[in-house]
């Protein structure tokens, strides 16, 4: 029993590390499955970074649409990222995190455009924000905001 208290820090760290690895992996898989499914459903909404619409004749309804998501890393990823920041190199564990946040944000933006009956979003802009900043003790997550202008149906000639 004494040994348990002596090594409590180590035991806690290992528990969180292992829990973070398995729970994080499970969460990520489930999220990716959901992302892929919705991406197929919303593939009809086209996304462009063009500043101007492809058809400029006649009036077209427009609407500002946006989507955002804050995704948190898990304990395992955070420890790994800490190691990477020491050794340098590609932080793969965070790349997937940002990829998930960006795709989720795009999906939410597309869903909003579809609600408006639009099949096209132009002038797409992205913005990344680190929630919690660089403070080690605060909750950390990455927010991606995606916004653009949804165009209504093309006017019939």
């Amino acid at each position: 029993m004494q040994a348990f208290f002596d090594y409590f820090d180590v035991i806690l760290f290992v528990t969180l590390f292992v829990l973070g690895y398995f729970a994080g992996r499970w969460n990520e898989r489930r999220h990716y499955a959901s992302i892929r499914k919705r991406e197929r459903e919303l593939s009809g909404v086209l996304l462009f970074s063009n500043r101007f619409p492809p058809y400029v004749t006649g009036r077209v309804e427009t609407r500002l649409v946006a989507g955002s998501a804050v995704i948190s890393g898990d304990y395992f990823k955070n420890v790994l990222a800490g190691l990477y920041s020491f050794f340098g190199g590609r932080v793969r564990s965070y790349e997937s995190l940002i990829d998930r946040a960006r795709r989720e944000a795009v999906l939410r933006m597309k869903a909003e455009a579809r609600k408006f009956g639009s099949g096209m979003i132009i002038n797409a802009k992205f913005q990344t924000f680190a929630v919690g900043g660089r403070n080690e003790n605060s909750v950390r997550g990455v927010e991606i905001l995606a916004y653009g202008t949804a165009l209504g149906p093309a006017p019939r000639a």
Partner: protein
Amino acid sequence: MLLSNLEMVPGRRVLKHLGLVQGSTVRAKHVGKDLFAGLKNIVGGELKAYTELLQESREEATQRMVKQAEAAGANAILNIRYATSSITSGAAEIFAYGTAVVLE
């Protein structure tokens, strides 16, 4: 009020430029949400409370920008941009800006 991040509106001419309008808000998270988010930080996943918080702030910043444009007599805001910056580790500023115009 028409909002767009385009520099023009398809099929409509800009009659008058009224200049830059802006809106901003500084929001802090609250402890209860932070506690739950701290748990999420172990297992990973979306921090829904944070997503909502930032979204609400963005809507408020947009509303303030719209009010300014209304006061100037505009009927549209074009070329809208958003910016986010962390003031301290607990608070973030959301800033929205654009050009107020009168469309035909």
